[in-house]
């Protein structure tokens, strides 16, 4: 069991170190760190408007993070969230298009299930290749990202193209009636509840259920898991499927709440940012929520950085890269500080 106090303190320190490195980087680029950090804050969390923007961007991250997080619990490093996102979105869009005319709730439920199923099977294939054939899951999942994007592009410029979409080839629309609506007067769509329930539900699964415990045993010590007779492959495949299904649902939300159709803008990098969220959360499904909001905020602030400081849009990429490297390096410090360790209980 992770020590919660240690995790939070070291993660917080890592974020500060990342900020310091970023400040040095900005100084080297002749930018004022104070001004840029202010803009980052204003653009991400400074007003209700930016909060809405942040939460909309955090929603897919809450789901794509699990594409890396769930397989990581059984010891697999999967980075195929982008592919599962694209496949889930594409297949959900096709479902929505073909079911037009039915009740919107029926259509949305069918889209949700299709997105989850297709995304899940996509990553299940990665898990199966590793479990049965020892094919490196990191590389195969990454290759599948490119393959998914190629299939998407092939279909939306080809047989699935709506002739009305000339400049940005897309599929037909799923219909305005079938779109996932916003909450009240805000621009936040109901998809955020899909994300939040995934985080809470999977926390329960991972921390409170026997299945979650079995996953931890498999990830912690495969030999021990085999010796106690756990159905190793079934647990591995299930965790991969759940992870992929989450990313597929994120793709479905992008179609059902934002785009209304499938096109090449589905591959916008939510899958890759999800990897970072998963590592930041250190495999804790509940910690995904704050980190997804943090990352969503950084992405939301990108536009303001461009306008106010003339920084290129890749700035958010640099920030994410720095945080990622520092967080991974911070692993060194776990267990190093005696005062942070939980005291063994004396019976």
């Amino acid at each position, binding site marked *: 069991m992770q020590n919660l106090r240690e995790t939070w303190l070291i993660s917080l320190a890592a974020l500060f170190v990342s900020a310091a490195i970023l400040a040095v980087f900005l100084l080297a680029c002749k930018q004022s760190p104070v001004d840029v950090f202010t803009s980052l804050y204003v653009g991400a969390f400074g007003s209700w408007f930016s909060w809405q923007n942040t939460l909309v961007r955090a929603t897919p991250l809450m789901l794509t993070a699990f594409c890396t997080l769930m397989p990581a619990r059984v010891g697999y490093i999967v980075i195929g969230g982008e592919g599962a996102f694209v496949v889930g979105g594409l297949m959900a869009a096709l479902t929505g298009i073909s079911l037009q005319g039915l009740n919107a709730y029926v259509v949305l439920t069918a889209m949700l299930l299709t997105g989850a199923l297709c995304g899940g099977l996509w990553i299940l294939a990665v898990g199966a290749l590793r479990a049965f054939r*020892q094919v490196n899951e990191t*590389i195969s999942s990454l*290759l*599948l990202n490119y*393959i998914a994007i*190629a299939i998407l592009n092939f279909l939306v410029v080809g047989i699935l193209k709506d002739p009305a979409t000339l400049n940005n080839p897309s599929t037909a629309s799923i219909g305005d009636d079938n779109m996932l609506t916003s909450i009240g007067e805000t621009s936040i769509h109901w998809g955020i509840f899909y994300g939040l329930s995934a985080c809470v539900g999977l926390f329960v699964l991972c921390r409170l259920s026997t299945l979650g415990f079995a996953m931890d045993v498999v990830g912690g010590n495969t030999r021990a898991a085999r010796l106690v007779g756990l159905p190793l492959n079934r647990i591995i495949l299930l965790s991969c499927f759940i992870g992929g299904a989450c990313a597929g649902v994120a793709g479905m939300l992008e179609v059902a709440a934002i785009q209304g159709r499938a096109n090449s803008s589905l591959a916008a990098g939510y899958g890759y940012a999800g990897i970072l969220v998963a590592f930041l959360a250190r495999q804790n499904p509940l910690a995904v929520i704050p980190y997804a909001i943090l990352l969503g905020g950084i992405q939301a602030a990108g536009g303001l950085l461009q306008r106010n400081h003339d920084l290129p849009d*890749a700035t958010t990429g640099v920030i994410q*890269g720095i945080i990622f490297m520092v967080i991974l390096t911070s692993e*060194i410090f776990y267990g190093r500080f005696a005062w942070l360790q939980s005291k063994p209980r004396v019976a």
Partner: protein
Amino acid sequence: MDASDNSLWVLLVAVIGGAIRVGTPFIFVSLGECLTEKSGRINLGLEGNLIMGAMSAYAVSYLTGSPWLGVLAAAGSGCILGAVHALLCQHPKVNDIALGIAMMLFATGLAFFFGKPFIQPSAPHLPSVSLGAWSDWPVLKSALDINLLFFVGVALAPFIAWFLKSTRPGNRVRIAGESADAALAMGLSVNRLRFFSTVVGGAMASVGGSYLSLFYPGSWSEGLSSGQGLMAVALVIFARWDPIKCLYASFLFGSAAALGPALQSVGVTSGYYLFNAAPYVLTLAIMIATSNSTGTIKGLPGEFVK
């Protein structure tokens, strides 16, 4: 010449020319990855090295007017990225695969950040040798327009093979990869050997990137590299960690990547996006075909056997 009328010939020549043209960056990245993995470490961040190398080469070539200085700058950037990876990975708690992904995101972001002003201007290219001057068939001529870096890459493969097989430092690198315990028992510094291998490997990958921006496709843009750095990791597995076989594998991957554009040049345009996926599908197919249920692959450095 009859051949020029036959679209099958055009296709064949275009694919072979493409294998050389598109395969060259693969040679550098895969040799770099091969060297790194021989020392017992995986660097998944070479994709970042490739993009960073492409950007710095293009920028320096544009600013100084010398493409060779650009290649040098690319190598320098690759050394720095390799050094960061090697230094952070020294600690056993830092996962080299995850760090590779982080380095990839970081280097890509950095390259796009600094590369923004260089998307428009055109930089001087690396010189190439026209081996097809004897032919008056333009298809063949352009296929045999071969860049100097290609020859460097072809020479590098046997050199690295010789280095690993027959020199003392090369043998030490292999010992670090086969068994860190054995290396320690011999009084070798495993970390230093892996540092050296990762830095040199990173530099090679970045030189491969300079080829992308300074010869083919020959300009700097954000969509320049599309996974070549990661495919190289699979390519090394396919080549069984043998530098000479890396060379052949690079040609194979190059021809797969050239298939889409080559088909387009003879008028087959319908499945363009699908053919673009050919190298990824090929990589995946090869990984599955060369796998087995136990995970023991001939040639796998001992440190990866867990």
